[in-house]
């Protein structure tokens, strides 16, 4: 895929310039100076020769076949050039030129025309408004970046050209190796997913790195990422996260789901490793590009000092990694050559007077324990330690095993040459222990991802019909919110238990209803204008007698009449008092890019304060439902604390899957939540106490 971009036999630079400092000059110079072996054709109407290459006044004048066009002409001429590409049967172009949608309305119009033109002519293009592209293996540097990164296994794509430059500059001194460098620009034709697919097929790329600000098609992104991430790790830094969009939402679920939640879920569900800072992006990339994955959570730390060892141990504690003591046999072996005051358990402290050979022996001994899946080496530059020799020792050990070794040689000046050695031989070094641990953890999580069984999707069909009638009716009446009785029927159609309830218009009817249901009962106001009943004082619970029901009827209706005279009161709902249980919330929300998401959270009425919630994009697999519950901090409450009985966790998971099915069945749902969903003891199921639905669109 995209072969003509990465491995072109000939390149034309349209808008090549003779003036140093101009982009059209720099690009041509980069193509020539970094050893590109194919043919290069500068296109410039007013020159016969540019940078020693014969120049043509138009693409159409070039007699030879051209694989890749690099376009640097002013924006108003770009469409014409694309037309010429079509005529010349060039199917790949990089459009460097800016002045499109990033520059305003006129630019946006131009970009739309460009897209149309390129589709007519069969030209695929990267950009516009980008920095260009580099392939270190085919030695194509079709960019105006300063410098050429070393050959290596990292394939990097970025929506921001500036970030490309920063990453490149950061990579140069450490000779961090890249396979490809792609500045995506406005992504108006070739998108992230195209590039991810291409990089997944590229032999030279071991790890895919990306910086994105947004995606155009969320579903496609997930689909492609899930497919690619099974093959190669994808590490993405995503910026532009806000929760401002939550303000206008009318349901809990809507208010709690920001854009952040959508991206986070999308990454989790498609196996994308998320970096939160540029530093993390680099750290992870180095580990993935150079070391094998740990095949389990058990890691060992070898250190020459106590403090950093503890910091690393603390970081492990917060991760999925586990520090496990070595087998007795190897502990005994350590005792034979380490000073008696050393620490033989994990972290293994070989003391500040260690030299390179003590490091090497310790590492070899540790690695004899087959249960250890990865090793992390810490070094503080004590007066006696020979940093370079130690680095070489670690490299030697690393070469001999197929388990990951990461290092943190701390400090700057005294460790500098040692860390260079480590990096040179593919042992990533980190300035601080926490970074090292988080990189190892990312690798372990990725190992889990590629080895997890295929997701299982439950087949929950046949519930749709009854609900469809209701949704149709709501649409026919041009409403966006469903009446309570409709919500009740929909939940019933999907098999949710709900409290017994009867509608009453007068106190007399209310008393009769209460008698029919059996005391104690709950009374709730019913009015199409009132969404959040308890805010308006429209709910009374635990009514135990005729008198209490009558009083409650008076109180509730009077209160609502007083504070909302315009509201129509249809009557009250008398409901059975459901026995105690734990309150959870679950809901459906719709993200503009990723579509429906399912939310889960604990806390009942406090959910908006606690914000202890998790999200997944629909459709949910069984595994997703399982993880969603366990992701919340308050999950142990469901397990039961201080001798409480365990809640019916299985029933919650099943409810999430049903909700997911509902979202699949009815794309028109914009927001829905069941709050609270009462969870009873294990085996006793869940009861939907209250719920609301909003629909819209088609």
């Amino acid at each position, binding site marked *: 895929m995209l072969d003509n971009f990465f491995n072109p036999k000939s390149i034309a630079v349209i808008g090549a310039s003779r003036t140093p400092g101009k982009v059209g000059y720099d690009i041509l110079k980069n193509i020539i100076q970094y050893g590109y072996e194919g043919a290069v054709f500068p296109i410039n109407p007013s020159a016969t020769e540019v940078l020693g290459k014969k120049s043509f006044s138009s693409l159409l004048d070039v007699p030879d076949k051209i694989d890749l066009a690099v376009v640097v002409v002013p924006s108003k001429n770009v469409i014409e050039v694309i037309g010429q590409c079509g005529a010349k049967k060039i199917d790949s172009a990089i459009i460097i030129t800016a002045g499109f949608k990033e520059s305003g309305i006129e630019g946006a119009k131009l970009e739309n025309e460009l897209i149309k033109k390129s589709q007519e002519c069969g030209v695929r293009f990267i950009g516009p408004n980008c920095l260009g592209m580099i392939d270190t293996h085919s030695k194509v540097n079709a960019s105006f970046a300063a410098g050429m990164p070393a050959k290596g296994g990292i394939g990097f794509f970025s929506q921001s050209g500036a970030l490309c430059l920063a990453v490149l500059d950061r990579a140069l001194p450490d000779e961090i190796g890249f396979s490809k460098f792609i500045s995506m620009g406005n992504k108006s034709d070739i998108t992230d997913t195209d590039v991810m697919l291409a990089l997944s097929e590229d032999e030279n790329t071991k790890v895919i790195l990306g910086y994105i600000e947004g995606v155009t098609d969320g579903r496609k992104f997930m689909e492609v990422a899930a497919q690619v991430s099974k093959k190669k790790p994808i590490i993405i830094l995503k910026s532009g996260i806000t929760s401002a969009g939550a303000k206008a939402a009318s349901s809990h679920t809507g*208010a709690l789901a920001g854009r952040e939640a959508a991206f986070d879920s999308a990454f989790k569900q498609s196996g994308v490793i998320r970096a939160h800072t540029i530093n993390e992006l680099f750290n992870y990339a180095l580990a993935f590009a150079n070391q094998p994955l740990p095949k389990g959570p058990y890691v060992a730390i070898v250190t020459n000092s106590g403090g950093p060892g503890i910091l690393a141990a603390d970081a492990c504690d917060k991760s999925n990694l586990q520090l496990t003591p070595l087998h007795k046999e190897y502990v005994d072996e350590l005792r034979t050559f380490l000073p008696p005051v050393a620490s033989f358990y994990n972290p293994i402290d070989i003391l500040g007077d260690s030299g390179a050979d003590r490091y090497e022996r310790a590492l070899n001994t540790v690695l004899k324990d087959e249960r250890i899946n990865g090793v992390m080496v810490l070094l503080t530059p004590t007066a006696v330690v020979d940093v370079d020799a130690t680095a070489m020792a670690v490299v030697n050990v690393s070469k001999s095993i197929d388990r990951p070794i990461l290092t943190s040689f701390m400090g700057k000046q005294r460790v500098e040459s040692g860390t260079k050695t480590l990096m040179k031989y593919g042992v990533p070094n980190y300035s601080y222990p926490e970074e090292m641990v988080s990189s190892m953890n990312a690798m372990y999580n990725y190992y889990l991802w590629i080895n997890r069984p295929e997701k299982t999707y439950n087949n929950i069909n046949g519930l749709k019909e009854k609900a469809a009638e209701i949704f149709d009716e709501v649409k026919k009446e041009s409403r966006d919110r469903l009446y309570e009785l409709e919500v009740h029927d929909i939940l019933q159609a999907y098999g949710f238990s709900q409290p017994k309830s009867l509608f009453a218009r007068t106190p007399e009817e209310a008393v009769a209803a209460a008698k029919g249901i059996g005391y104690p009962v709950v009374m709730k106001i019913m009015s199409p204008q009132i969404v959040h009943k308890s805010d308006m004082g429209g709910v009374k619970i635990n009514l135990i007698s005729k008198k209490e029901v009558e009083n409650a009827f008076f109180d509730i209706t009077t209160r609502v009449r007083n504070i*909302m005279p315009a509201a129509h009161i249809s009557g009250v709902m008398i409901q059975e008092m459901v026995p105690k249980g734990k309150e959870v919330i679950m809901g459906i929300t719709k993200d503009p890019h990723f579509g429906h998401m399912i939310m889960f959270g604990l806390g009942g009425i406090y959910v908006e304060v606690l914000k202890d919630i998790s999200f997944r994009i629909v459709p949910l697999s069984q595994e997703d439902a399982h993880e969603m519950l366990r992701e919340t901090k308050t999950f142990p409450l469901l397990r039961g604390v201080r001798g409480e009985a365990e809640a019916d966790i299985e029933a919650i998971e099943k409810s999430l899957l049903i909700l997911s099915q509902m979202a699949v069945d009815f794309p028109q749902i914009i927001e829905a939540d069941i709050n609270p969903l009462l969870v009873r003891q294990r085996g006793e199921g869940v009861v939907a106490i209250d719920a609301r639905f909003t629909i819209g669109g088609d």
Partner: protein
Amino acid sequence: MISLYVGSTSGYTGKTLITMGLGHKLKKDGLRVGYMKPVGILPLKVDDILTDHDAWRIYRALELKDPVPDICPVVLTQELAVISYLKDVKGLLGKIVNSFNRLSKDKDIMLIGGYGSVYTGSYLGVQGLQVIKRLNSKAVIVVKYEGEYIVDYVLQAKKDLKDKFLGVILNKVTEDHRQSADEYAVPFLKRKGVDIIGVIPQDPVVGSITVEELTEMLGGKVLCCHDKLGNLVEHFLIGAMQADRAIEYFKKTRRNAVIVGGDRVDIQLSAIESGSVCLILTGELYPSEIILSRAEQKEVPMMVVREDTFSIAKKLEKLSVRLRLRDKSKVERGMNLVADNVDFSMIYKKLGIKTGS
């Protein structure tokens, strides 16, 4: 015994306050004053006796001693409302007459407080016009002055009330409308033989609302300064502009409450610092601790509401027409307004009341 009905041609014109003011003055002039509200729409239970909020308030203000059930014989509860639409309810007018007869026995004058307009209540068989006729009352019509066009309603009421029509009080006349009232409406009505009993200006204090009432109506949660819920709010501002512009508005608007998104920290701080009396944070977005502690320090109550700024502003727009007389300082102010702007000598003359003075 004289009976005076205070009615209107639309709801929410300020009848309650004017009735209260009239009662006060009549009492002060040595008359034995009675009061009843034939139909109440704000149900209230006092010692398990069903009555009406406004009626109860006037009963207390005038220090009356009559039996409470007679003060408001018909209370429009949800139950009565539903039943009256489902089947014809009979005997309500008779009930009103009976209460009136009991109350009026030892009185010089009975004040009758209308509900809604003189046209409402037909479905219960207790329309204002009917009540006036049965109780043989004279009627003063209170009109909320919103422009010259209200003269039409006054003329219609005069026609419908015939000899029962006493005159008109133009209420809530804003500064903007004062000129139109003086130059057009009043001379016109006089020419048509309508007596102008009073012209009462719009008053910011009477038109204000306490933070506590606001919380109740908006379903808000109070976050701080629980002891400042009695703060009176006269104006509402929407904090959606730049902070520096906002400060100007906050400073020049008396007793303002600011409606602002829960995440607009800049506006919130500006409002607290420039003397707003209440902050309404929308979107169920809770403020940071810094804001809360500053508000507590400056004694500015804050509440969080679920809806967004637009919906809350829409609600408050409706709210201003149905403010209730709850606060003591508001009531006193209202009494003074009535005393200063109603031509009592005209009322007395027309009703044939002679006082000592």
